[in-house]
């Protein structure tokens, strides 16, 4: 068990980053599923709207900058 742990010890490949006053940036190995639009994809990098005002939801379109 401990052997396995040391072998597998590595940083997560996927990074979820909350950008201050900006979108959510996710990079790495993900399956993104949008339930409302019934879209599933595996982007290596994606910026998701956090302000609720994007015209391209769930993606960021920089609408937040108009409201800061």
């Amino acid at each position, binding site marked *: 068990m401990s052997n396995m742990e040391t072998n597998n010890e590595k*940083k*997560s*490949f*996927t*990074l*979820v*980053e*909350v950008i*201050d006053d900006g979108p*959510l940036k*996710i990079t*790495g*190995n*993900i*399956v*993104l*599923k*949008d*339930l*409302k*639009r019934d879209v*599933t994809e*595996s982007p290596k990098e*994606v910026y*998701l*709207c*956090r*302000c*609720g*005002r994007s015209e391209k*939801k*769930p993606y960021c379109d920089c609408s*937040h900058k108009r409201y800061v």
Partner: protein
Amino acid sequence: MEKASNSFSGGRKYRNNDITVYWKPDACVHASYCYRELIEVFDPGRRPWVDMNGAETDRIIEVVNMCPTEALTWKWNDEERNKDISIDQTNHVIFRRPELLGTMEQSIQENPVSVKIMTDGPIVIKGDFTFQYGGNKKEIKEGIISLCRCGTGGHLPFCDGTHRKIGFEDK
């Protein structure tokens, strides 16, 4: 491991001719997609609460895939069919609970992180990932976080349910 035909370590399982659905109650976060979408199959007020005869297999799979956690997962009874699962089958056990794939070799070494955009609701992220915000960095192992998408929550960046109060509509 299996004590009875309808249980497995960690929960219960339900079968029809095509698939087996696994229920792991500890993992449930009460997102309630299962019974809101398909009460004929998933009825919390009934015992047993899952009736695999309540809908077609395709529809059951569709609703199990909506579950944001591994509380509900599924696999084909025909193990051959479990070897080639497309990534949109998000709650297939190969992505959520590969230990349940009895005879199959674990071919996927690193499970992708699940990112679900909930209908008129938050972003639910599940799996192993690094979470970074406000200068903090945290390694999340088999964790789940729910992040605000309406911009008005009181616990930003996390969801606190405010989207429902303000009638946030994702369009």
